[in-house]
């Protein structure tokens, strides 16, 4: 997630790095881009505005202007602000209460409540907690069946009572939990609009009746500007204890995370990373922020690269970057190196700037790229600028691709070339190196 935001922030911040000096004007220019990036990532209009204002206040200050490397200071400010907005430290479920802990899941239609109920049940069960799933959605066709099947999959009992009202179901389930010494009770409620008075009242009634220890808002990571309104309403009526952000396994930029957090002030506790029940992860604000800045993943990449990349190859590349002689041959060998590291999918967009080049990174695309590069003469690979009409047609014919595809490759290569030469010049490697030493908590979201 946050890929696009990352890309935009990267380009904005790269500019800052390039200039060396940080004037009010430059900060404003860059922050205009940051603002746009945030809006494109679905961060709420007002949240984005506020964020920009705060960063601006901090960025245009003595400290920044006097510092040796002003760009890094700005990077740090943007990063810190994002971490702060996202919630500082990671936070998960509180299971300390004596007796059965009751966890209630609420949210809009189709946001992923039932799936999250299954995921949390699996999580709790595997930590040795006796868990009970409760089907409190009496509206959606086959909602009870869905939860029952999930419960079966993970061997967690499911309380279903047909013909009863949700409030009654939840109360009865809690009673049963107490009787049977169950540690955790998960209430799967029906999806509803935050503006539906009657349906929201139902949740208020459940809350009053069973006094849940946790009320989690389950929200879709792809949610747009509406995220603030729904979060505000749910929080106002139910005093949420946290948020679960689902469907983070896609390419949603996920700006909703910032919005949800900003209006409720409640922590995002988990993220859903897939449809399977084990696809639940804790939420790490710093990873998310790093991801936004396009730095965190670099660490993962560098670590992975260290393990698999040929060191002498690596040195050669670094030398080429310094001398700005990165050619199509080098590009091809880089792609091969990356391929060795494991599934390409997702790896390349860990490299700042790569994503912006629009290069498609699946294996098939690699084969195509390889075929085209192989159809070039040594001279062409060294200096792609000389590839004009006739040469393009020859390369296309030789590789069985179209001229458009050759054009696309050249365009993308030009972008990469520009990007890597910028890296060589401005000490991006130093950045990478300094981050190598920084320990990380593990995989970064994508």
């Amino acid at each position, binding site marked *: 997630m946050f890929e696009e935001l990352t890309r935009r922030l990267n380009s904005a911040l790269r500019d800052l790095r390039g200039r060396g000096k940080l004037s009010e004007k430059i900060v404003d220019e860059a922050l205009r881009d940051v603002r*746009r990036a945030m*809006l*494109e*990532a*679905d961060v*709420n*209009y*007002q*949240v984005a505005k*506020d964020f920009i204002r*705060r960063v601006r206040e901090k960025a245009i200050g003595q400290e920044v202007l006097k510092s040796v490397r002003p760009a890094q200071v700005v990077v740090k400010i943007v990063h810190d602000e994002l971490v*702060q907005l996202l919630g500082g430290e990671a936070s998960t479920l509180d299971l300390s209460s004596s007796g059965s802990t009751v966890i209630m899941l609420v949210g*809009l*239609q*189709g*946001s*992923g409540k039932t799936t999250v109920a299954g995921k949390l049940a699996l999580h709790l069960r595997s930590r040795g907690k006796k868990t009970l799933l409760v089907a409190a959605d009496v*509206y*959606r*066709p*086959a909602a009870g*069946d*869905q*939860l*029952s*099947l*999930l419960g079966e*999959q993970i061997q967690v009992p499911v309380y279903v009572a047909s013909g009863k009202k949700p409030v009654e179901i939840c109360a009865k389930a809690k009673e049963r939990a107490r009787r049977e010494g169950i540690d955790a009770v998960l209430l799967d409620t029906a999806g509803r*609009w*935050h*503006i539906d008075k009657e349906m929201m009242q139902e949740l208020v009634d459940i809350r009053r009746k069973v006094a849940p220890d946790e009320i989690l808002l389950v929200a*879709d990571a*792809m*949610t*747009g*500007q*509406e*995220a*603030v*309104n*729904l979060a*505000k309403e749910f929080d106002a009526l139910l005093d949420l204890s946290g948020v679960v952000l689902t*469907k983070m*396994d*896609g*390419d*949603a*930029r996920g*700006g*909703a995370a910032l919005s949800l*957090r*900003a*209006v*409720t*002030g409640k922590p995002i506790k988990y993220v859903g990373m897939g*449809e399977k029940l084990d696809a639940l992860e804790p939420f790490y604000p710093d990873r998310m922020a790093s991801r936004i800045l396009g730095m965190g993943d670099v660490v993962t990449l560098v670590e992975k690269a260290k393990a698999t990349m040929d060191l002498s190859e690596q040195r050669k590349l670094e030398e080429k970057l310094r001398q700005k002689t990165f050619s199509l041959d080098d590009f091809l060998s880089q792609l091969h190196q990356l391929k060795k590291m494991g599934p390409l*999918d997702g790896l390349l967009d860990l490299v700042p700037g790569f994503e912006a080049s629009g290069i498609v990174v*699946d294996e098939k695309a690699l084969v195509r790229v390889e075929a085209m590069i192989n159809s070039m003469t040594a001279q062409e690979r060294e200096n792609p600028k000389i590839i004009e009409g006739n040469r393009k047609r020859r390369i296309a014919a030789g590789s069985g691709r179209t001229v458009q595809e050759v054009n696309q490759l050249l365009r993308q290569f030009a972008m990469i070339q520009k990007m890597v030469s910028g890296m060589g010049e401005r000490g991006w490697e130093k950045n990478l190196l300094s981050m190598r030493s920084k320990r990380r908590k593990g995989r970064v979201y994508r």
Partner: protein
Amino acid sequence: MAILNRLKERLSRTRTELIGSLARVVRGHGCLDAELLEQMEEILIRGDVGVETTAKLLEGLKEKSRAAGQLKPGQILAILRQQIEEILGDERSKESSLPLSSTPHVILVAGVNGTGKTTSIAKLAKIYLDRGRTVLLASCDTFRAAANEQLEIWARRLGVGMVKNQPGADPAAVAFDALRAAQARGIDVLIIDTAGRLHTKSTLMEELKKIKRVIGKQIQNGPHETLLVLDATVGQNAISQARLFHEALGLSGILLAKLDGTAKGGIVIAIKDRLNIPVSYIGIGENLDDLERFDVGKFVGALFSDS
């Protein structure tokens, strides 16, 4: 936490004070200046129209005002509205007769997880039933828990048949069986439900393509309609969704579900503008009658009004 509280306050104030209707803001302001443009930008972006399309719309407005001199509020609104209607306008969505291109007329329904596919399919079936057509449903979601059961309940309520298979079965095989059954029974409309999937998962997108291929082999020009179901609360990610589903399947239209909330679904403007995929239907509730043909005028009207 102080910052958060402050922000919270500001947001609640913002909602009541700022997010009025475009109409109100424009009328209240009078002339087209930087301040009004910013207010309009905010409203459009908060309607999920997106930065790029919003900029394009406002640029168009500025151009008109440069050419025509100072615009009156009524003119500003009319121009903006006209621009949006022009983007959204589509001949196909004007057809109210729902012609059947062949028997059976096959409609394939796809989309990311939880957008409203299954429910919308039930409503779509209702529309055809109301026009005296016979309908068969195919449950090609063999993945999600109780997907069969869910569609089955709708089929029973509608009094239509449904073809299904075991969970885990090949969805393309289910589509094939359903198409055979529809042909054998002389059914008018076959609607195919598919499992929700994120557009970025290439194997799952391949699975969809296979369903489409199987249908295409069995019946000429099939599927005759391919609908992408979008959730109206979705943000800018919908562009990526539309692009990748379109690449995989060649979409005939969008079904914009859950438009009965306060989200405006403005992203469909950007989608039509960039990818030329029209909106065919809107979903406005969880009951069988809550599906309507897309009406550009009404949609834009809602975008301009209070939420």
